[in-house]
């Protein structure tokens, strides 16, 4: 009798353990973190190259807008998680392939927290974007806790836009560059501030609340 109870108890514990493991594995599932800190020497800068696309074109949510990151080996990865070294100049280049619209809050048309408070848009230095004019803003690259905000100018919605990532430069795009100094060690959430989750309440669901799409972490190591 005692042996039978022990067997049942053991099986029960294993079953509970499996359920907990599966749940935790699901909750902890994240896109890969690209390491830009490996082999970094003091005084060196880090280059971070990204692209934004109107629809990722693959995976579980092919219609969602997304960021992609170019890994140090040059391959495009569907991730928004990066390890970068502390107190280092980060040079960011973003290839922006999506169409634009007005920002919900035009305040985020400011370029904030970058070196010189500016960015370049297709080679032109800019510190403020009027999202209510022209193609508007497609997305923003914003790290609120660091006071960094960069609006990404949109492409014309009537252009032949890229629909499957990673996009090649033959498609209409804007090139945005800027630099910022990484802070001390810590994890800093970043996000897009243009509600680009089409089909979700006020555009703020779906990709806007999903790491790997329009949210991520700058992990300073």
């Amino acid at each position, binding site marked *: 009798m005692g042996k039978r109870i022990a067997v049942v108890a053991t099986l029960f514990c294993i079953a509970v353990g499996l359920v907990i493991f599966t749940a935790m594995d699901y909750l902890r599932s994240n896109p890969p973190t690209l390491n830009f800190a490996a082999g970094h020497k003091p005084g060196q800068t880090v280059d971070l190259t990204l692209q934004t696309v109107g629809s990722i074109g693959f995976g579980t949510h092919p219609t969602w807008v997304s960021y992609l990151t170019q890994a140090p080996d040059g391959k495009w990865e569907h991730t928004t998680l990066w390890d970068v070294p502390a107190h280092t100049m980060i040079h960011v280049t973003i290839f922006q392939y999506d169409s634009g*619209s*007005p*920002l*919900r809050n035009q305040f985020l048309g400011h370029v904030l927290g970058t070196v010189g408070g500016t960015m370049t848009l297709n080679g032109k230095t800019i510190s403020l974007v009027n*999202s209510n004019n022209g193609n508007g803003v497609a997305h923003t690259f*914003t790290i609120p806790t660091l006071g960094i905000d960069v609006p990404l100018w949109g492409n014309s919605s009537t252009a032949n836009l890229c629909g499957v990532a990673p996009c090649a430069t033959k498609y209409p795009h804007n090139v945005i560059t800027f630099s910022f100094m990484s802070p001390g060690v810590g994890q800093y959430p970043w996000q897009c*501030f243009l509600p680009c989750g089409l*089909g979700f309440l006020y555009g*703020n669901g779906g990709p806007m609340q999903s790491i790997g799409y329009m949210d991520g972490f700058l992990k300073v190591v």
Partner: protein
Amino acid sequence: MTNALTSPPPTPGAVRAPGVPDGHHHFRWMMGIWLVLMAAGEPIIYFVVGPHVPPGTMTSEARGAQFDFYVLLMIALPVILGVWIYLGYAIWTWRASRGGPEPVVGPYSWGHLGAQVGWILSTTAMVLGLFVFGTYELAAAAGAGGGQGPNPLFTPAAHKILPVQVIAQQWLFTYRYPTFGGFETDQLVIPANTEIAFHVTSLDVIHDFWAYQLGVKADANPDYDNIAYTHTTDQLGNFTVRCDELCGIWHGAMYNTGEVMSGPDFTKWAASNEKVLAAATKLLPPFAWTYTPDANGADGGYYPDSRDPYSNVEVYGAQTVKL
């Protein structure tokens, strides 16, 4: 309340435990311990703990909240001590190893009318007293730092009030200063010794503006101007602003730091921002107490009240800007 305070009349068959004197003796002991601890505890709360009770003294509302907290502490202390002393005394004195009485039968389980009535009356008086006290504190401090909606019931007597608009969105607070050209910034700066009216609104979901050290807390609802008053004291320094309403993935990162400056420094800061941000302010929608997000869902755009050029679906009542 049972026999611990006073002994009931002996009944046939009832046995007093060895070494247990009459109930009045116990009552005097417990009262004595209670009085000694009260005499030590109340001054400690008032003079030692009180000044460190949050949220501090950066505004009259924060100071009021601090006062309310230690009034509550001072009123709660006698009750807490009474219960703990009774419990501890009972466990120690009437424990079974000392031959204590059987706890569920016999005369020791009888109630005591005087003690019961006294308990009910004293706690009722305490609760009703706190109700009156709390209501007075809410009215006297113009809402005690809480959001009162667009038509506040409790308004400050001050004639000169600085309006500051708090705009929440997923996941950032920004601030507009209507009396300085309506510029918008992500820095919350306010002057010392000034009555402030925070007009709290949202561009998307429900957030909550909680300026902890200011003693100000108001929900940020879309299309709703939630007004909270506070009066800064002469204490300068930084304070923390947090969102206190679960609002999505980066709710936990929706915070920033504000600053209370001296009056002249604030004027200099605001005038400088008004000038530096003039070009950016022209791109903002005209100042309004609420803004209507674009009803199309995705895509951006926020517009004063019902003037959403893209929406023929949602209509909201326009408000007049009163400065």
